[in-house]
C-alpha cells in the first residue's frame, strides 16, 4: 500500500509530468524520420527493400507505425493519468479556495517581500475604508477586520490552468473519438462520370473501428468537368496554379445542386466533406477485334508517374475475339521524343499522345478474382508481333487509329481529365477544435493573470498620527507593479510618502506564505 501510494505521488508530481513531456517529444521524432505505414505505405516498402538488414528489427518495434505503437500510446496514456492525478485534486483545492476569504493579515507586514510604512492624519476607520475602496477599485477581493484590510486577486490564474489542462484532455478525447468513428475514402472519377457514396464504389477506404457503413451520407456526385491550370511563365514552369471541378450533387432529398469544388473549398454535404486530392488523364479509346466488333470503348484512367504527368495505364478488351487484347502504355500530355526517349515535358495536355505495346492471348475465363484496372497480369499473354517477329509498338495521337497485324484496331478518340475525390467524415473534429480553443484561452489566463495578496494595517503609532503599514506578495513569477500597489495602498490610506522596503526583484524566490513547490 505504501509503495503504491509512493508510486502515485511520483506519477502525479510535476517533475514526472515534465519528464513525460520530454519523452513524448523524443518518441515522436522517429516517426518524422522513417516513412510511416498509415501515411505512406509505398515508401515503407521501398525503405524496407533498400535496408533489408534493419527492416525486420524496425518492424518488430513498430518504427513504421510510431503513432500507433504501444510504446507511444504508453507515454501519452501515462501523461494523461499523471495529468488527471494532478489536476483533479487541484480542482477540489480550487473549489475550496474560491469560497474562503482572503487570508488574514500577517502579524509582521515588514517581513513580506514588499512592504511600506508611513503615517496618516485620517482616523482609523476612514483610512481602512479608503484602503479598501482602493483595493476594490483594483479588483481585489477584500476582507476588513478591526485594524486591517486584506486583499487578494488573481484566482483566475488557477482557473485558467485547470481549464487548460482539462481542455487538453478533452482535445485528446476528441482525437480518440474521431479515430474511432471517422472514415476516409478515395475514388477516381473521370469527367462525365459520377460517384455514389457506398462502399463498393471506393478505390481505397479507411475507417475507424466504430464506423458503420450505414453511416455513409447518401450522396451522388456527377463530375461534369475538371479544370487544371499550370504555370506557363519561366519561374516555376509547370507548377499547379488552379484546380476546380464543376460538379452536380444530390443528397437524400433528390434535389440536384450545381457547385464548383476547389482545392481549399471542399464540397460539404451534411457532415461529409468531399475534397479534390488529385487529378490525371484518361484517354478515350475504342478497340475493335478482327471481326469488326467493338470490344471496348470509353475513357481509361491512366496514373501519373511524374510531375509532368507522364501517365501509365492499361486498356483491356476482354471481350475481343478470337483473342483477348490488351494495350499497355504511356499517355504523355505534352510529348517530346529526344535522346532520353519519349516523355512529357509539361503537365497540361498541349501535345498529347500515347505510346503503346499490345498484348494478346487466349480469351480469359471469368475467375471472379479481382484484377487491378491499372496494371496487366501478363500470365498467358504474349506481346503481339509483326510478321517478321518485331513486337508491335506505336505512337498514336488523338483522332488517329491504328490497325494491328491481326486485323483489330485501336482508335484514340479523345482524352479527358479525371479527378480523385476524397470523401471523409470527421465527427470528432468540432470537439477537438473547440477544446484547443478553450485550451488557448485557459492557458492565456493562467500565464497572464498575476495572483497577488496585499494587506493594510492601521495602528496607533504614538502621537497624533496613525501608523500605516502595507505589504504584499505575488504568487506568480514575473509579476511587476507590486511595489506600486503597496505604496499606492498606503497613500490611499493617507500615508502619502510611505517608506518602501523590498522590491519587485525579490519575486520568483520561495514565497513565505505559500508552498507552491511541486504542486498539487
Amino acid at each position, binding site marked *: 500500500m505504501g509503495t503504491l501510494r509512493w508510486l502515485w505521488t511520483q506519477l502525479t508530481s510535476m517533475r514526472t509530468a515534465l519528464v513525460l513531456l*520530454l519523452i513524448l*517529444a523524443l518518441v515522436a521524432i522517429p516517426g*518524422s524520420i522513417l516513412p510511416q505505414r498509415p501515411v505512406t505505405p509505398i515508401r515503407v516498402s521501398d525503405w524496407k527493400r533498400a535496408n533489408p538488414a534493419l527492416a525486420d528489427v524496425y518492424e518488430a518495434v513498430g518504427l513504421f507505425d510510431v503513432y500507433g505503437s504501444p510504446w507511444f500510446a504508453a507515454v501519452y496514456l501515462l501523461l494523461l493519468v499523471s495529468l488527471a492525478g494532478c489536476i483533479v485534486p487541484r480542482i477540489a483545492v480550487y473549489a475550496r479556495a474560491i469560497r474562503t476569504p482572503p487570508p488574514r493579515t500577517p502579524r509582521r507586514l515588514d517581513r513580506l517581500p514588499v512592504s511600506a510604512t508611513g503615517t496618516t492624519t485620517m482616523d482609523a476607520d476612514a483610512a481602512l475604508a479608503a484602503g479598501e475602496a482602493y483595493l476594490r477599485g483594483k479588483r481585489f477581493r477584500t476582507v476588513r477586520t478591526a485594524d486591517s484590510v486584506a486583499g487578494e486577486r488573481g484566482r483566475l490564474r488557477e482557473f485558467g490552468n485547470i481549464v487548460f489542462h482539462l481542455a487538453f484532455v478533452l482535445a485528446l478525447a476528441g482525437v480518440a473519438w474521431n479515430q474511432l468513428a471517422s472514415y476516409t475514402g478515395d475514388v477516381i472519377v473521370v469527367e462525365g462520370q459520377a460517384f455514389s457514396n457506398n462502399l463498393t464504389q471506393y478505390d481505397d477506404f479507411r475507417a475507424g473501428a466504430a464506423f458503420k457503413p450505414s453511416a455513409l451520407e447518401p450522396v451522388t456526385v456527377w463530375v461534369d468537368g475538371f479544370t487544371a491550370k499550370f504555370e506557363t511563365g519561366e519561374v516555376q514552369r509547370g507548377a499547379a496554379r488552379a484546380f476546380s471541378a464543376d460538379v452536380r450533387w444530390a443528397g437524400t432529398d433528390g434535389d440536384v445542386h450545381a457547385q464548383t469544388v476547389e482545392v481549399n473549398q471542399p464540397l460539404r454535404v451534411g457532415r461529409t466533406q468531399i*475534397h479534390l*486530392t488529385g487529378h490525371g488523364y484518361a484517354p478515350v479509346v475504342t478497340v475493335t477485334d478482327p471481326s469488326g466488333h467493338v470490344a471496348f470503348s470509353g475513357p481509361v484512367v491512366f496514373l501519373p508517374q511524374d510531375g509532368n504527368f507522364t501517365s501509365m495505364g492499361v486498356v483491356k478488351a476482354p471481350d475481343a475475339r478470337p483473342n483477348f487484347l490488351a494495350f499497355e502504355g504511356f499517355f504523355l500530355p505534352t510529348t517530346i521524343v529526344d535522346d532520353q526517349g519519349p516523355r512529357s515535358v509539361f503537365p497540361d495536355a498541349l501535345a498529347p499522345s500515347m505510346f503503346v505495346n499490345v498484348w494478346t492471348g487466349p480469351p480469359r475465363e471469368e475467375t471472379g478474382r479481382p484484377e487491378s484496372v491499372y496494371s496487366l497480369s501478363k500470365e498467358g499473354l504474349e506481346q503481339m508481333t509483326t510478321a517478321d517477329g518485331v513486337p508491335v509498338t506505336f505512337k498514336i495521337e488523338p483522332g488517329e487509329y491504328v490497325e494491328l497485324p491481326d486485323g483489330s484496331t485501336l482508335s484514340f478518340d479523345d482524352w479527358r481529365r479525371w479527378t480523385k475525390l*476524397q470523401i471523409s467524415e470527421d465527427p470528432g473534429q468540432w470537439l477537438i477544435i473547440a477544446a484547443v480553443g478553450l485550451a488557448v484561452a485557459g*492557458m492565456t489566463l493562467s500565464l497572464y493573470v498575476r495572483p497577488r495578496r496585499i494587506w493594510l494595517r492601521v495602528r496607533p503609532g504614538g502621537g497624533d498620527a496613525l501608523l500605516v503599514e502595507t505589504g504584499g506578495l505575488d504568487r506568480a513569477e514575473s509579476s511587476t507593479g507590486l511595489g506600486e500597489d503597496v505604496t499606492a495602498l498606503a497613500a490611499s490610506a493617507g500615508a502619502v510618502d510611505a517608506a518602501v522596503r523590498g522590491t519587485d526583484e525579490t519575486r520568483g524566490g520561495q514565497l513565505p506564505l505559500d508552498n*507552491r513547490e511541486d504542486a498539487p
Partner: protein
Amino acid sequence: MIATYSSLAMVSSAVIYLLAMTAHALEWASARGADAKASPAGGGRVERFGRIGVALTAVGLLSHIAGVVLRGVAANRLPWGNMYEFVTSSLALVAVAYLVLVWRRGWVWLGLPVTLLLSVGQGLAVTVFYVAVAPLVPALHSVWFIIHIVAAVTSGAAFNLAGIAALFYLIRRRAEASGGARGYLARLPQASALDDFSFRVNRFAFPLWTFTILAGAVWADYAWGRFWGWDPKETWSLVTWVVYAAYLHARVTAGWKGVRAAWLCLIGVASFWFNFVGVNLLFSGFHSYAGI
C-alpha cells in the same frame, strides 16, 4: 523589375546587418578590461560602438522591410508563400521587436546575437533559400493559411528572442557564480532579469504557437481533408510545442527552474528552427528518394 529591387534590398540588408554585427563585436571587444564604472572613457567607447550597431541595424531594417514589401508587390500577394519569404518576414519581425526593446528599454545588449541571427539568416535567405517570385500553388489560397503564417512568423520571432535571452542567462549566471561578470557581460542585465525576460517572451509565444498549430490543422483540413496527418512538418511543430510545455512546467519545478529551464528553452528554439528549415531541406530528400 520590382522583384529585382526587392532582392537588391534584401541583399543590402544582409550586408548592413553584417556591418552592424561587426560594430557590436567591437562593442564587446572594447568592453574587455574596460569596466564601465572604473573607466568612463572605455565605457564611452563601448557605448559608441553599441550606438553605431543599433543605427546600422535600423538602416538594415529599412532596407529589409522594403525588400519584404516589394516582394509582396512583385508577387501581388502577401509575401509568405515559400521558405525564402517566411525567413525574410520572420527576421524582419525579429529586427522590429529588437529595435522596440532598444528604444523602450535600452537593451542594446541584445545587439550582437540579434545582428548575428539577422545577418546569418538574411545571408542564407538570399543565397540558399532564394526563389524567384511566383504565384501560390492552389493549396495555399486560403485565409487560414494567412492566419497560420502570421501566427507562426510572430511566435517564431518571439521564440528566438527568448532563446537569446536564455543563452545570455546561462552565460551571465555562470559569470555571477564564479565571482562576478566582467567585460561586456557586466553590462548585461542580471541573470534573474534575463531569465524573467525570456519567460515573458515565451509566455507570449506559447499560446500563439498553440494557435498556429490549430490554424494549420484547420487549413490542412480545408486543403487536404484531414487536419492532422503526422507529416514531418506537423510532427515537428508538435515536438516544439511539447518542449515548450515542458519548459513552462520546468519553471515551476524545484531543481528545474533556472538553468534547466533555460536549456529547455534553447532546445525549443532549436526544434523550431529544425522544423522551419531542417524539415524542408532534409525530409524533402526522403521524398525524392521515395519517388525513384
